[in-house]
């Protein structure tokens, strides 16, 4: 796989790891957040933590759209799916996400709701065309990467005169979430952020460009390296962040130059802007309500907005109060610090947002990393 295999070379990785180890200042602690679940996946999948020196720590961010979807929105989707006229089309990732009281789309489907897993919004459009007798609702989630295909579906539905297609929009915005993390200690009474830099998202940035991150340097004196998703991309980006720290710089840098430009994909941006508009505020699971952090359909496309078409009423539901996702997401705690981790809270029965998808901080640790816990625990014990 060209443009893939080159970035999965283990020997090169170990060499870069040696560079990082060589350049890491042993008197310092480095803490970087990979915002994006894609990076979390690469780190876990390739065991990159084992390649980093002990004083370079990665904090798993909230950049998994499945994880940050509030329980209430899942409940609303399930309610919608129970409507006998509705066929709910959704990406497979959402099937097992738990709503309130153990409900989920996969269980709603088992109980008779008409729910279809699709690979693309085009599949949802095709279902609507094939079944004019059904109201087909696409359960849309995702960051800026996944939003343009949703916008495209709305445009297509309009062009084809489909009166039985709509979108339950849950698209959210990356920069707003980064801002919320940076402001969290201030607004939420949480411990000060220990994050010294962000791995910026790969494909979100392919759409929005690198410019939207400039403000974080100006306002918060943060470091951002937009990074590709392959493991060598991640290693190199970590090195770039580490060098910024060592050199006392704060800047937006772009490691993923092969796909990301400062301006991003203007056509996609225009399309999204035509179809969607900002919500005043939106609830993020694990982070709470974040102003201007999500999209909804513009008035002009109101007829394709499931929330309006079905007069959906918001459902408010709260997470298990013992869940530590909020503090984990800002780097103040780690998954194994949560007393629910691995006992009542597992990927089969997630109690909090970080356990929902394998890209969530807790789930990634459970699925890929938990073998390290005992070593760590005993290392801790030996040290104490």
């Amino acid at each position, binding site marked *: 796989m060209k443009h893939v295999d080159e970035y999965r070379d283990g020997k090169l990785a170990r060499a870069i790891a040696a*560079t990082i180890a060589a350049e890491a200042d042993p008197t310092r602690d480095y803490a970087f957040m990979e915002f994006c679940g894609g990076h979390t996946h690469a780190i876990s999948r390739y065991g990159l933590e084992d390649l980093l020196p002990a004083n370079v720590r990665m904090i798993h961010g909230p950049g998994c759209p499945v994880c940050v979807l509030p329980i209430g929105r899942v409940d609303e989707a399930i309610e919608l799916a129970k409507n006998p006229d509705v066929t709910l089309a959704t990406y497979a990732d959402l099937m097992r996400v738990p709503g309130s009281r153990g409900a989920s789309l996969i269980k709603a489907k088992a109980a008779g709701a008409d729910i279809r897993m699709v690979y*693309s919004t085009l599949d949802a459009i095709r279902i609507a065309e094939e079944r004019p007798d059904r109201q087909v609702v696409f359960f849309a989630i995702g960051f800026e990467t996944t939003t343009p295909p949703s916008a495209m579906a709305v445009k297509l539905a309009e062009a084809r005169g489909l009166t039985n297609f709509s979108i339950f929009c849950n698209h959210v915005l990356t920069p707003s979430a980064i801002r919320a993390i940076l402001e969290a200690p201030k607004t939420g009474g949480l411990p000060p952020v220990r994050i010294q830099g962000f791995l910026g998202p790969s494909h979100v940035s392919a759409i929005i460009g690198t410019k939207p991150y400039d403000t974080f340097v100006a306002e918060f004196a943060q470091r951002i390296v937009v990074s590709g998703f392959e493991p060598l991309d991640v290693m190199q980006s970590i090195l770039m962040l580490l060098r910024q720290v060592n050199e006392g710089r704060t800047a937006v840098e772009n490691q993923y130059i092969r796909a990301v430009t400062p301006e991003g994909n203007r056509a996609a941006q225009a399309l999204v802007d035509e179809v969607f508009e900002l919500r005043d505020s939106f609830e993020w699971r694990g982070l709470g309500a974040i102003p201007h952090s999500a999209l909804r359909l513009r008035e002009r496309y109101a007829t394709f907005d499931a929330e309006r078409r079905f007069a959906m009423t918001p459902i408010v539901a709260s997470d298990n109060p013992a869940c530590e996702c909020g503090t984990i997401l800002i780097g103040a705690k780690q998954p194994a610090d949560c007393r629910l981790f691995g006992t009542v809270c597992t990927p089969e029965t997630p109690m909090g947002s970080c356990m929902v998808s394998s890209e969530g901080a807790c789930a990634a640790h459970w699925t890929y990393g938990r073998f390290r816990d005992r070593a760590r625990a005993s290392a801790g014990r030996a040290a104490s």
Partner: protein
Amino acid sequence: MCLAIPAQVREILPDGMARVGLDGVVKEISTALVGDLAVGDYVIVHVGFALSKIDAVEAERTLALLAEAAGAPAEAMA
């Protein structure tokens, strides 16, 4: 999030569609978000859409930077 993978354009289809290939795996995708493409181009594919083109020159540059990042300590530690 945003599982996406580079694939090579093999055939331009009507209606803003294209067939792309990835190591012998072939898939039909929409190219509506990226504008003009030519056979041989690499694009990043996400949920059935091409999100952006891959810039071959910048890719070469990245590989060079990677080699540099890998090579530097060898000298430093030498």
